[in-house]
């Protein structure tokens, strides 16, 4: 199970990093999402991978560590909000800059002039 789990995280991180290094916003957003999935899985494994253990203290001698689950939950919520924000920002960038490059080729735009 450990091998499968670790490979999943590894493959997700690899894909995420590859996509983040792309020059356009859509792959970058996808890459960020993949990376955050990988991070969530990784955080979950910080409490050790075990099966058939109670989740609540006091119901048995063995119990699973509840904290990483709370951490993952928090990380998912925050990651969701951030992904929503970055998607909207990417759309705004597409509209404002006229292209979807992360570097945002400004083209022939003069410096903003104060009136």
């Amino acid at each position: 199970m450990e091998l499968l789990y670790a490979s999943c995280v590894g493959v997700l991180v690899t894909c995420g990093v590859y996509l983040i290094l792309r020059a356009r916003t859509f792959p970058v957003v996808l890459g960020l999402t993949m990376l955050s999935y990988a991070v969530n899985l990784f955080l979950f494994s910080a409490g050790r991978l075990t099966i058939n253990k109670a989740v609540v203290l006091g119901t048995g001698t063995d119990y699973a560590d509840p904290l990483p689950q709370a951490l993952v939950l928090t990380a998912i919520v925050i990651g969701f909000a951030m992904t929503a924000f970055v998607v909207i920002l990417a759309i705004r960038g597409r509209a404002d800059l006229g292209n979807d490059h992360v570097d945002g080729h400004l083209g022939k735009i003069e410096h903003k002039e104060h009136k």
Partner: protein
Amino acid sequence: MIQHLASWPILLPMLAGIILLLPPCGKSIPIRRVASVVMALLNTFVSALLLWQVFQSGIIVYAIGGWQAPFGIVLVADLVSVLLVLLTSFLGLAVTVYSCMGDDEKGGFFHPLVHFLVLGVNGAFLTGDLFNLFVFFEVLLIASYSLLMHDGDKHKTRSAIQYVSLNLIGSSVFLIALGILYGVLGTLNIADMAQKVSQLQGDDVYLAKIGGLLLLVVFALKGALLPLHLWLPNTYASAMPVVAALFAIMTKVGVYAMLRVYTVIFGDEAGQLAHMAQPWLWGLAVATIIVGSIGVVAAQDLRKLTANLVIVSVGTLVALVALQNINATAALLYYLVHSTLVCAALFLVADLIAHQRGKVADRFAPGRGVAQPYLLGTCFIIAALAVVGMPPLSGFVGKIWILKTTLDSEKALLFWPVYLLASFALLVALSRAGTTLFWERKHQDSEPTEGVKAHPLQVTAIIALLVCSPLLVIFGGAVSEYMIAAATQLHDITGGINTVLGGGL
């Protein structure tokens, strides 16, 4: 109520943000402005009260929801964190007052966002738990993303995309580091981690080291340490100056997190991992000072120059973090307060100058003169003298203190020439900037336009920030005693652990 005082600097800005979104404030601009300023004032007052309380009676440990550390999340108000909380609240107040003269209505929700940012920064300073630190980082980041887009144009969108992507990657790295550290140490409470890290054996030592150094990557990104500083000049220069002034505290959050983690957790008593980040911090800090001062010299407008000044100050602060002794930490706190206030003031001065110079704005090119040369000139020269570190202002005291601290260590040979040359570069760049901005005209007849004078409230905000610099010198004795007491408290690791784990309210 007084026993909940430690949570107020977090709760008040949250309340303020919510109140400002509700109907009476949401609809009417004057009500919104008054409410925002009043809440910011209240927050500054409460922060000052908390500082007084902690100064009188020692560290306050506030267990949120009554769950004791290390199982629950605790807020730890010690001398270091309350000082920075007061600094943040004060900066928030100055920015709120300044923005009331029109800057806040250039986009939506400026005031609530400012308060949410202050909430995140205060929380990051007060928390005693690393995961909670992550949460507050995200709170301050999402507020900063929106503030960066305030009065959005193409330049802002472009730098926002880069800033947001970078910080999202940073957050992922932060979580990976926390996962590793939790997996090894079984806790994320800073005091508890400090206790457990010295007992690590075998392979766990290396895992903890990986986790700790990944944290360094994150904090270096937030604090704009070389080579992760590249986002800063563009972001700060394209944001509205009033927003950039508020952002002056955000890099300091990264520095503070480094101070906490590498002094308390991986500090003197960490066994095999003691001072593990020190060589990295030192080298990167010196390189940051060099690159920052090159940026200052190369800057073509005042805002970019100030953004690079922020980088130089971060380099200086991190060099002091790397020294890891009481004197260096005390100097760091002094310099941190000074540099935050002065850089913020300089951003606001740049805004006024840009408004009054018409088309050339704050670019270093001959152009129309400013409408209020004496007022803005005085503000600029005070800020410039303070930032360069000329006597008699706080920059000078800070610089002497820093040089004196580094003299004791064997690192002076590298640090002194770099730091003094950087100061010289700053002096040259700021003199050139002042000369061009205030004295050089394209034609003899290009007189300043009347009627674009700064509003008294804007001037008040700038003066409030600038006056702290001489005050830091006049009350230098008391202030430096406070800094030394705060640094001693931070370096008393065993005492800190006992206080935090001994039980809060």
